[in-house]
Structure formats: structure tokens, C-alpha cells
């Protein structure tokens, strides 16, 4: 049984006047198997975050359905945890408290929660800053706290929305490696959104490409989980192929599909 199965979903959002809705995702189907590392790439605004929101259970599709281990996804669950694209920490909590917040209170005693939080803060290299407030951290450090928070939840499926896009190249590479290690060690299923094709090739066992307006799956590459040498001939060819298939973003004036909700 797939961990996540997305069965022919479509999703539309209303415009501001609420007299029409724009289709953001159209007939998207995707099976994600146990222990896969799926990278989703695609132009800005094509609906990548929307896919993640649907899997996480924050939003419901307008057509089709999503299953998590055979059960329809109707709401959120700590088993499907997200690292958000935008700033999502609580400003009044220090780093430790922010990470502790998301750890299951029924399963762990307060002491254990602190231990667990510390372990993952250490993993993202922020032990020294455990008592700092988010306001006093750099953008990249904030994002690492968000990653530690999601890791500390020890979810079955990790949904990561461009988690490293705010980081410098060095830190990004280090954290990429970190995520790979965790994924290999802890046997998780990961859905990872990125604009960085090299990153997608390095991390992913599979790469999914979405087109924009409306978002649908237009490309899929299975790469496997063995260690990859990004500079090898094979990977360079693959990267060039993926890059050449990327369209410009939806904002570049493509045709926009509108469905009218007034008529219904």
C-alpha cells in the first residue's frame, strides 16, 4: 500500500471578488511509496505548496481524493509534518520552546520532550542558540529551527517546502547531507519542494515536475537512492534535461484557466 496516494485531484481557489475560481491543480495523480524521497519542482506559483497543503490536510481538494496509508486524508495529523516555506516560529518562545511545542505531549514527559528537542537542535547545529528568541536569529537559523521542530515530531511523512532556499550554499549543502542521513537512518518518507534542480537530483529518489496554470504533472524521473555524483556525465545530462523542461513561471503571462462559480 502506498504511503500517500493522490487520486485525480483538482483544486481551485476563488479570486478576491469571489465571482470566479482559478484552477491551480488539475487531475494530479501520484503514488508515494514507503521510504521514497520525492522532490517536486516547477515554476513559481504552479501549485507545489498547494500539493503539500493537501497532503498535510490543511486544505481539501475540490475533486478526487488523497489517501494516507489507505485512509482518506480529512485533516491534519502529527504523522504528516510540514516545514513551512514562510516564517512559522512563535516569536515569544525561545528556540528550545519552539521545538518542544510540536513534540507529542501524551507520548513524552516534559523532561523527555526537552531531551528530544535538544537532540534535534543539536542536529541542525543550533545548540548554542537554544535560549535565543527567533527575532535574534538570522533567516537561515530560523529555518533550521523550523526543520528541527519538524524532525523532533518524528513524523511518518515529512513535507518540506523549500526549506533551504534562504540559506547560503555551504549551509545548504551541509543540511542537504543532514537530511539525507536522517532519511537513510530513520526510514522516513519525504516530499521535498525545491527550485534547485541539483538539490533535487542529489536528494530525490524521484523527481516530479509540475507545469503551471493549471498545475499538472508533466515530468517524472526515477533516480534511485544510491549515492550520486552530481558531476558525473549521467547526472549532468539529467540536470540539463530537467532544466530544459522547466517552463517560465505562471506570472509570465500564460493563458489562465478560469471556471465560473456564479453559474452553478
Amino acid at each position, binding site marked *: 500500500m502506498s504511503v500517500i496516494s493522490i487520486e485525480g485531484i483538482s483544486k481551485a481557489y476563488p479570486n478576491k471578488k469571489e465571482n470566479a475560481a482559478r484552477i491551480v491543480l488539475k487531475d494530479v495523480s501520484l503514488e508515494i511509496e514507503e521510504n521514497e524521497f520525492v522532490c517536486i519542482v516547477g515554476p513559481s506559483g504552479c501549485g507545489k505548496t498547494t500539493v503539500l497543503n493537501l497532503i*498535510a490536510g490543511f486544505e481539501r481538494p475540490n475533486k478526487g481524493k488523497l489517501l494516507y496509508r489507505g485512509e482518506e486524508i480529512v485533516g491534519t495529523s*502529527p504523522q504528516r509534518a510540514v516545514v513551512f516555506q*514562510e516564517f512559522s516560529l512563535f516569536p*515569544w518562545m525561545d528556540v528550545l520552546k519552539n521545538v518542544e511545542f510540536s513534540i*507529542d505531549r501524551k507520548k513524552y514527559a516534559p523532561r523527555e520532550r526537552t531531551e528530544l528537542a535538544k537532540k534535534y537542535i543539536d542536529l541542525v547545529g543550533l545548540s548554542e542558540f537554544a535560549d535565543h528568541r527567533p527575532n535574534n536569529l538570522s533567516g537561515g537559523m530560523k529555518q533550521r529551527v523550523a526543520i528541527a521542530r519538524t524532525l523532533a515530531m518524528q513524523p511518518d511523512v515529512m513535507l518540506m517546502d523549500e526549506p533551504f532556499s534562504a540559506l547560503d550554499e555551504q549551509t545548504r549543502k551541509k543540511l542537504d547531507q543532514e537530511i539525507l542521513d536522517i532519511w537513510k537512518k530513520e526510514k522516513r518518507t519525504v516530499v521535498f519542494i525545491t527550485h534547485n534542480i541539483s538539490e533535487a537530483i542529489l536528494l530525490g529518489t524521484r523527481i516530479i515536475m509540475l507545469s503551471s496554470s493549471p498545475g499538472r504533472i508533466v515530468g517524472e524521473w526515477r533516480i534511485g537512492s544510491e549515492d550520486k555524483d552530481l558531476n558525473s556525465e549521467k547526472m549532468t545530462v539529467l540536470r540539463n534535461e530537467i532544466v530544459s523542461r522547466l517552463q517560465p513561471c505562471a506570472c509570465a503571462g500564460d493563458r489562465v484557466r478560469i471556471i465560473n462559480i456564479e453559474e452553478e
Partner: protein
Amino acid sequence: MSLLKSTNERITQKMNDREDDSDIILLGNPAPRNLLKGVLIFIIGILFVFLVWDVVSSYYNTYMIKTLRFPTIRDTFDTLFYYMDRTHKLLRYTLYEHVAASMGRWVKGFVAAFVIGMTLGLLMGVNDKIYRFGSVPVNILQMIPGLAWFPVTILLFGMGNNSAIFIIAITVISPIAFNVSAGLRRVPQVNLRVARMSGRSWFETLTEVLLPFSLIDIIGGLRIGMANSWRMLISAEMVVGVAVGLGYMINQTTNMTDYPSAFAGIIIICVIGLIIDKLIFANVEKYARNKMGMEDSP
């Protein structure tokens, strides 16, 4: 005046004046400086008010009708100090009894408004449908000026104490309710999603995420409500027929053309209002801001 210089101006000055060439420029502990600056600005403000008062009163007393005297600063404070002596009564009560009566009504009215306003604000803040329906009556409430409640309160409570309390309460319910609900509705969606994703219950989300996020707005609402209710109290006491209190005192002494006493009453109102707002609420707000990580804390 060097005390009023901005921090950047001081850095510029120190950078140009100093002899050494280290990368750190010592500016000293800012706390006493800031306190002094605050006090200085406050004193200048007060002096300005007194200046205007002095000009108006001397102009009036020199060039206009002589049957009535416009109380000067001197007259007013002499009267104030005279009545600060407990043995001197004004309208059957000591000054302290007038103040206590007003404060008592104010506290009761404010507490009632706090309970109702918070409840309404919470309900409207957490639920979109309640907000849409609730904001209509709360908006209507907001449109009615305090003293326009006079006919309503006379019917409900008759003349006297309870009417004053009612007028205070009814006028500050809406600012509190609106600020609380606006604060709750401003909480970023992503933070609510973090709570949902982490399996927090509805109640935990309210107490651990929504309320801390909107604390500053809630305090802001209470602060506005406080100022409104304090002003409202004085006007209410003038019309609803109470026999003790600052508003009553000002009204009666004015009727008796005892203007220095009326002015003394106004001074007391200002002082109490300033203490509550500038000393208490401003500091609570500052503390909360810092505590909530809204401002960079050292």
C-alpha cells in the same frame, strides 16, 4: 540640548571626538539617559500646557468681564492644596471621598465591560461567522456616544450610581471587543497550522498560540477602553444625578461659580488619567511587547 540627541547623532559625535581607534564605541548605559529624556520631555509638555493656561487666564482677567475671575494656575493649586487637607470638605465630602467614589464606579464599569468585551471579542476572534454577525451590533454600540445612553439608562436603572456604571460599561465594550477580535484574527495562518499539525487541541491553540499572539492588541484595547471609560465616567456623573464624585463635584462647583474648585477637579482627573495610562498601561504594554518577542530583547 545633548539629552535630546538621537542615538545615531551620539554615535556620530563620539566617532569624531574620540582619540582611540578601536572598533567598539562605548555609549554607556542607556537606561538613566532614556529615563531622564522621558522626564524632560514630559516636563516640557506640562510647562507648555501651563503657559497656555497662564496666557489665557491673564488675558481674560485683564481685558475681559471682571465679574467672574478665570482661575489662574496659582488660584487652582491653592484650592487644590486647601482641599487636600482632610478636615476641609467640599460639597459635604472630602476630596478623597470624591475621588474614591469615582474610582469605585470606574472599576465596576470597567470590569463589567472587560468581562463582556473580552467574551464577545474572543467569540468573534475565533469564529468567522460569529465575527460577521457580531460585528454589526458591536459596530452599532460604537456609534452611540456615551451620553446618548442617558434615556436608556434612566429607564433601566433610574438616577444614580448604577446608571453611571452602566454608561461606562456600555461605551467601552466595543473598543475592547473589536481590539481583541482584531488581534485574534491577525494571527498568521501558518502559526495556527503549526498548532494543528502538532496535534494541539482547540483550547490549547487558543491559550498557547492565539492569546499570546494577540496579547499586545488586547492590552491596546484595554488601554483605549480605560481612557474612554475614565472620560465617560466624569461626564456620566454630571448628568445621572449622583451626590458624590469628581464629575458631580466639577458640575456643582461650576453651577456655584466656584471655578477654582472646578479647575482643581479637572487637575485631579488629568493626574489620575495620566498615572493610569502613562505609568501603568504604557509600561505593561512595553513589558508585554518585550516578553512576547515583538521587540528585540537584549
